[in-house]
């Protein structure tokens, strides 16, 4: 509102000079509003509103079909009680925890760091090849990536059985969780590798040199020089990876939650409950739990990145 005064000469005399200098294009608040509005409306309708709507939806018995589809009724916290007392919900949450820790925090972070560390002093085609392979796994569409893993682990003639001589072994049925964990590591490690590559290149060489001078071994250099230097990056990387791994839906493309719900991580569980299962209200209630967990991770991330900016 105050900015609109800057467009009139009388107003500009009253308004602080800095403000007038801001509006160099003569945009004016009204026009600026028109510029901003369409984007904000789309964000509001399809991002903000769904988040708020989830709260209400989670308190109804809304279903995809039947009587409750036409006129859903308010049921209060029934869905939340149903979800929280359902063993399959806790099973799904437990699987999600294993999946996030094993494939995200341990797998992607450690392998990403190890790769960045290994190739940091190599140049030429070996480095380009390794980085290129890891990046390619990251870039190709999830539908293709999941199909490649189905090919790899196929029961009858899959590549893995061919290489190991374990003909007829059904990897996806015997080890479904391990399969989607490895799959997710394969897909996502590139981000950690790139982040740690740039972090490692920013470590002051003088510190590494002096560590070498006093005879520190590779491991000691890593522990006493490198890790303290990139602590912030490690934290940032861990939080982002956790958030993304927690929300990924692509393991569905490999195992579809099966066999017998053994890979039914939270995102798949919500999908199965809400869309094929038709229980939209219950699905929304679980979605809200997921949104709250997301919120906690994202707030932690913001705290960390703010702290790093100040330091």
């Amino acid at each position, binding site marked *: 509102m105050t900015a609109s005064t800057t467009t009139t000469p009388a107003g500009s005399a009253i308004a602080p000079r800095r403000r007038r200098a801001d509006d160099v294009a003569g945009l004016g608040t009204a026009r600026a509003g028109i510029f901003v509005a369409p984007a904000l409306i789309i964000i509001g309708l399809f991002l903000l509103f769904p988040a708020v709507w989830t709260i209400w939806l989670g308190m109804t018995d809304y279903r995809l079909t039947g009587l409750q589809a036409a006129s859903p009724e308010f049921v209060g916290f029934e869905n939340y009680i149903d979800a929280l007392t359902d063993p399959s919900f806790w099973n799904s949450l437990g699987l999600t925890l294993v999946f996030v820790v094993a494939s995200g925090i341990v797998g992607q972070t450690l392998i990403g760091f190890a790769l960045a560390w290994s190739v940091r002093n190599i140049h030429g085609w070996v480095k380009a090849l390794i980085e290129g392979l890891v990046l390619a796994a990251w870039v190709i569409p999830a539908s293709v990536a999941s199909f490649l893993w189905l090919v790899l682990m196929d029961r009858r003639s899959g590549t893995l059985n061919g290489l190991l001589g374990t003909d007829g072994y059904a990897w996806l049925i015997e080890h479904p969780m391990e399969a989607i964990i490895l799959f997710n590591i394969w897909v996502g490690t590139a*981000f950690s590798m790139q982040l740690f590559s740039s972090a490692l290149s920013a470590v002051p060489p003088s510190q590494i040199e002096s560590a070498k001078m006093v005879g520190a071994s590779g491991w000691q250099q890593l522990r006493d020089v490198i890790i303290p230097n990139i602590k912030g990056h490690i934290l940032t990387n861990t939080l982002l990876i956790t958030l993304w791994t927690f929300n990924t839906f692509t393991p569905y493309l490999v195992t579809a939650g099966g066999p017998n719900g053994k890979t039914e991580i939270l995102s798949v569980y919500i999908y199965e409950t809400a869309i094929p299962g038709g229980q939209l209200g219950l699905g929304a209630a679980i979605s809200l739990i997921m949104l709250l967990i997301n919120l906690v991770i994202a707030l932690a991330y913001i705290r960390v990145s703010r702290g790093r900016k100040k330091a």
Partner: protein
Amino acid sequence: MTAPATVRKVAANTTVRHYVARVAFGLVLTIVGLLFALPLVWLVLAPFDATPTLSLAWPDWTLDNFARLFQNPYAMRSIGNSLLLGVGTMIIVVVLGALAAYAMSRIRIPGRDGILYGLLLLSSIVTGTAAMVPTFQIITSLGLINTYTGVLLVLAGGILPTVIFILKDFMDSIPKSYEESARLYGAGPFRILRDVVVPIARPGLAFIAIWTIVQVWGNFLVPFILLRSPDLQPAAVVMYTFYTESGQADLRLISAFALLFSAPVLIIYFVVNRRYGFRFHGGIKS
């Protein structure tokens, strides 16, 4: 034992240890590299094999699979659909994002930075997975289920906060003196935007455009939930139905399709990465 001999022995020990460590390091790196390469090799070889199987095999080279793929109206239409969704989202996001970022950069709105951070936070919390139920319901009640409008709006809503955030940085870096002098010559805000701001912000806009297309190209969940008829589905969804609904998988078709579907993003990524050195940091896959 004399002192020099001990030194020599220790030195020899460290050299041996050093050598062993180098070999072990090389070995581990090779194994990790092979694990990453293994699924990709099939993607590169199988499409050119006259009789592809699920195992790795040196192909019996042919381009027939691609010829068949180009004749398959179903597969090619889905690639076209992916392109339509990618370009459509890109246009919405670049135009609306640029307008919003420009206005936010030039007009001081109280709490602007707070709003921007809030939007960014929101977009990382409300992901396709966590918001699939309300999104499905909203699109259904708007009557936009099984339409591109619905998919485009949902995709744009998810991507716009990041886009505005990045573009505002670009707009902030444009010197205000350019606009001042344009204004002195009597140019209006739209003219300034078109002839002064857009040309300068072009690298930023190009980055956003490419980033959006790559994001949408691989997106599975949103079209999977919101589109019902196979005619409309993009390649990401059709690829999935190819091998789940048709009991006997046609590997000649699927392998060629997988490569054709992956190639554009791989090419974009490696060309851009090599030429400009920038990296798609942030949520390229979310």
